[in-house]
């Protein structure tokens, strides 16, 4: 795959080129509330892409907080359904953080599991992701603990690394190659490779110091210790779901029907979170996850046990946003450290861990 170089100025020009070519350009930029967030680029104002992680992840670009799935109309003796076309504009993300790009590749598995999520894949297909090797590592980052790194290429089509005067550019996929080819006048011969390697190593070393645990190894302990007292974690949790709102891999949604008068209405899907009691509340009033201890356990289990059992991947990219966002001061790094300690001190279980696996639902709408 080809390597190249682009100046900061040319990157700005490239952003304009892409917009003129009819592509939506998504970059980290100040949101309406003044925070750095991924969002549509303001024409001609592309500044340095680096720095701290955007406050929320990139998932909203692929799984919007609300999305119409279909409209229904009440006819005389019938209900007429009109499926909504997914909005999947040709898009280029410039300056995605590698952890956020990796999350998309991880989520592809569940989105193509028992049901092929058309809107998700329509947007995945229409989008080229240009990541920036992360230079905003802080004390909550732990991507190296889930097998990633600040310069991971997973899920990215192009990887940029900030070097003196601009960015080292590496194409990683056919889409990435195509992007470089289509805009080749903006790129020059690769340079700064040694500096890039040095910076990327420095960032990786910095993350490593935050959490000396391989979070992929806690899977088996979790599977065998569902009732462990460790999971009495819930006291300081507000059950607010801020963690899920900022998480790149939390993908649960709620489907609601919103009527518009008597004529019809819209079925929408909206972000949801397993941290609220309503998430599992049955119509009977019974709630299988009846307290916050159980809900937090679910969050840890889903990320580090259930998903890896089913898909061979950890449902976490170590971005650390949950720890930064938690109003109650919960910290996943601390929890992983504790679990790792318990894992090391526990005897290896004699019996293999049995996890019920649901067979895929056959005859889906594939």
């Amino acid at each position, binding site marked *: 795959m080809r390597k190249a170089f682009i100046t900061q100025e040319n990157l700005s020009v490239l952003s304009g080129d892409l917009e003129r070519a009819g592509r939506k350009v998504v970059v980290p930029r100040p949101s309406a509330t003044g925070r750095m967030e991924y969002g549509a680029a303001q024409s001609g104002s592309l500044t340095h892409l680096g720095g701290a992680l955007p406050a929320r992840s990139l998932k*909203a670009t692929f799984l919007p907080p609300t999305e119409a799935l279909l409209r229904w109309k009440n006819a005389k003796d019938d209900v007429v359904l009109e499926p909504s076309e997914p909005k999947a504009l040709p898009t280029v993300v410039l300056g995605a953080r590698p952890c956020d790009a990796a999350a998309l590749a991880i989520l592809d598995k569940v989105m193509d599991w028992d049901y092929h999520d058309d809107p998700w894949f329509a947007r995945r297909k229409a989008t080229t992701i240009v990541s920036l090797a992360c230079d905003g590592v802080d004390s909550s980052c732990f991507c190296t603990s889930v097998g990633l790194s600040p310069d991971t290429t997973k899920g990215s089509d192009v990887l940029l690394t900030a070097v003196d005067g601009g960015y080292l550019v590496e194409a990683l996929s056919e889409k990435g190659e195509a992007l470089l080819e289509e805009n080749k006048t903006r790129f020059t011969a690769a340079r700064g490779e040694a500096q890039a390697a040095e910076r990327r190593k420095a960032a990786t070393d910095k993350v490593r110091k935050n959490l000396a645990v391989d979070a992929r190894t806690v899977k088996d302990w979790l599977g065998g210790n569902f009732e462990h007292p460790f999971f009495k974690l819930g006291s300081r949790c507000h059950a607010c779901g801020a963690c899920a709102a900022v998480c790149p891999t939390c993908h649960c949604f709620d489907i609601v029907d*919103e009527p518009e008068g008597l004529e019809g209405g819209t079925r*929408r899907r909206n972000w949801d979170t397993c941290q609220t009691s309503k998430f599992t509340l049955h119509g009977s009033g019974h709630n299988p996850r009846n307290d916050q201890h159980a809900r937090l356990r679910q969050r840890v289990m889903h990320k580090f046990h259930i998903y890896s059992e089913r898909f061979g991947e950890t449902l976490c990219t170590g971005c650390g946003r949950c720890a930064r966002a938690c109003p109650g001061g919960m910290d996943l790094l601390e929890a992983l450290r504790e679990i790792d300690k318990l894992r090391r001190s526990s005897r290896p279980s004699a019996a293999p861990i049995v996890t019920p696996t649901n067979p895929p639902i056959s005859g889906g709408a594939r």
Partner: protein
Amino acid sequence: MNELRQLARKLLADKTVGVVIGYEEGQGAVTRPSFATSPEQAEKLVFDARCVQNLASYLSPRRSTVRSLGKPAVVVKACDAKALAGLIREAQVKREDVVVISVACGGVLADPRSGKALSEAMVADRCRDCDGAHTSLADHKVGQAKAPAFGSPKVDARLAELQAMTAPQRFAFFKSVFSECTRCNVCREVCPMCFCARCMADKSEPQWIESSPHLRGNFAWHMLRAMHLAGRCVGCNECERACPAGIPLSLITRKMQKVVSERFGYSPSDDPNVPAPTGAFRLDDAQEFIR
């Protein structure tokens, strides 16, 4: 600090309470809520300008995990005490079921993660009009009360800017900030006064508030949240601090606080016997807007 720990130790040792809800060192440079259930655990307790959380939130009847720890003693700042008074006023907590430890607070940081020291620039906005006095609810007072001396709240200046705009400009402003709202409900869940077992926003028949985070649903949510908190909100600003989208919710809560104060002469009070303005009325309440 020693005074606080000693007190907590004593309360736990003689079984006056089952849990002391206070603050402890968290990960990194921040503090976080702490739930000390044994005299030994009382040694973890700290209090300083990083202790931003309103611990009265944990006394809400929705917190079953906290309630299961036994009778609580709670560490409160002057602002948090008003939320506790609200819970008592609205019959969610019985006064005799909680031991109130009032800590002297000279103001807390707007962003404890910044690692900066407390200063005029770094102080949480709500501390600017606080008198710092110990609450009259206190069963125990720790530390000498001192009034924080910082300028007037910045939210008031922003309110004045908004007030100077035309109505369509304000509508455009709220549209732009509400477009960031994903209806994660964090503002509701962290609020000490949002204690309903089932929120109006979670009801679907009829669905008064659309749960979808489109602008129409978001306007309905933020306006009705403002209405339900009017005269009850104590201005602790946990909602804004916790909002993952950074929506300036204090603009709305502060505005409603001013409306209630100007119209009904009510300010958030730490006296549970002062009736909330929405549960009371005067025969001569102004009605200039009614034909």
